[in-house]
């Protein structure tokens, strides 16, 4: 993309999009001093993974992260990007759950037929999980088709479920904790029931960025993995203190209160990427017509820059 990203001091300037009231893994990595030779430049907030990696593909940012399925779709559409490190996943602490109002009578997969489900963005994690789950629960394609997905900002989802504007809402992270705390919602299922613990999304870099600044790619991937490990290995209080410091010092007019709902990044140790992280979604990708037949997962990613992953 032609623009020289190198700063006068020799560091590489890396543009990225953040998220409101949240500290992303690279931000944490940077704050922890794990990003050698990198200077992060915040260009705005974004709550959609697909848009985030699109902006990376078009050169608006240099790093973006999204759900694996979206990474596949972007590459299948022809964009020259490669995934270099996992940046979120699902485990017992951090996961995507599907919640209905307690008085709604929705308890299991079959109850979802003909109902509406709110998700944060289409074509991504929640959609893929719910489709896969319904299929696994033995629903026919026709029945699955009757489950309507609606895009809603996560903050609206809670209220929308409570007031029955949607029947079920997909929630994760802070919005999830906030909603569950009220005690009037019931979890119908969560993504870890479908796949156990898994890495769900990757940071991607543009291929030309990788070629031009391999050491920066290296620093980003490894730093992210280190930060994920740091968050998993420190006490909640320590992590929260760090995150609070970061949010308070960056002055984006955010709400530190929201951090109290933080419950990890869900990403596995060392944040590696595996073939499975992509092949897991093949049925859904096929069904939604984005890819035909088999895919070769190894084309989409590399662990080459993640030293921790290479160590095993």
């Amino acid at each position: 993309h032609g623009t020289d990203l190198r700063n006068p001091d020799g560091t590489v300037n890396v543009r990225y999009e953040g998220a409101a009231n949240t500290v992303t893994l690279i931000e944490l990595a940077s704050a922890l001093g794990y990003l050698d030779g990198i200077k992060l430049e915040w260009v705005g907030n974004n709550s959609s993974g697909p848009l985030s990696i699109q902006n990376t593909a078009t050169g608006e940012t240099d790093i973006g992260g999204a759900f694996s399925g979206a990474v596949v779709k972007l590459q299948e559409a022809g964009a020259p990007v490669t995934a270099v490190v996992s940046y979120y996943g699902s485990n017992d602490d951090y996961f995507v759950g599907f919640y209905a109002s307690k008085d709604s009578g929705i308890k299991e997969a079959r109850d979802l037929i003909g109902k509406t489900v709110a998700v944060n963005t289409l074509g991504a994690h929640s959609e893929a999980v719910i489709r896969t789950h319904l299929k696994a629960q033995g629903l026919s394609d026709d029945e699955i088709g009757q489950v309507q997905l609606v895009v809603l900002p996560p903050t609206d989802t809670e209220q929308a479920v409570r007031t029955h504007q949607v029947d079920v809402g997909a929630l994760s992270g802070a919005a999830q904790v906030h909603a569950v705390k009220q005690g009037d919602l019931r979890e119908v299922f969560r993504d870890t029931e479908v796949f156990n613990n898994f890495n769900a999304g990757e940071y991607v870099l543009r291929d030309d960025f990788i070629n031009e600044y391999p050491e920066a790619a290296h620093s980003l991937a490894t730093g992210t993995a280190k930060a994920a490990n740091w968050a998993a290995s420190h006490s909640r209080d320590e992590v929260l203190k760090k995150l609070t410091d970061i949010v308070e010092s960056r002055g984006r007019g955010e709400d530190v209160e929201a951090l109290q709902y933080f419950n990890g990044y869900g990403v596995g140790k060392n944040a590696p990427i595996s073939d499975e992280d992509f092949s897991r979604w093949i049925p859904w990708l096929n069904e939604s017509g984005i890819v035909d037949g088999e895919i070769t997962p190894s084309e989409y990613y590399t662990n080459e820059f993640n030293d921790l992953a290479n160590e095993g």
Partner: protein
Amino acid sequence: MSTLVLQDQPASIDVVSAQRKPSTGRAIKALRKTLYRSGAIIGFLLVWELVPQFVLEPASKVFLPPLHEVLQQLWKMIISGDLATHIAASLSRSAIGFILAVAIGVPVGLVVAWFSKVGDFLNPLLEVFRNTAALALLPVFTLLLGIGELSKVSIVLYAAFFPVLLNTILGARSVDPLLIRAGRTLGLNSFEIFSKVVLPASVPIIFTGIRMAGTSAVLVLIAAEMIGAKAGLGYLITNSQASFLIPKMYAAILTVAILGFAVNAALVALERHFSRWARA
């Protein structure tokens, strides 16, 4: 800039019969004229087709596919009936909101204009609301009215209401007082003055408002559908974008363009019809 003001009218009176058998010479001329007039559009479409293919680098081409790919995609959606579903969803929302806006805006506007006390009272509030970008209120509509059809129709109603209302007030206020005097001497009572003089006299200006409302309705609806919808053209655009179905996204945008054009043309035709008596 025509100084030939006299020309049109007598000519159109005399020649109604002669017009029935256009000569071939005229046909060719008309064709050439049409071609000339479509020149810019054709040029634009050509650029769209050729630039992505021959000028852009592959990485950009992904996000700006050539026209034929977009048309193929459009055709697919037409065949499958998908497009019809989305158009129907968008059209019905904007139609309901728009019709409500007209149905409420015109009578309220007439009342406000007629009873100038009411106007004095309401005007400042109306001014504030009118100048509050509908989209800034989108979150409020979602919070208060939910994410369903109600909030979408409401925001369309909101966006379309003010142009209708304000033009109705303007129209009714600018009715020639002479016509009202004439009406009174012809035995019309207050209500008849209202319905038979003020209303018809305001029609041309009201229609300007209605046309503006049509534009607003479409604009705001697209934005509203980008958030919390499961069908509609706005939904189709964001959804396609999120799934990197870029030709599909352009097909949806093209549809919005054509739809916007058609809605406007329809309103202009309606306006012509209802204002045909207005000074030529």
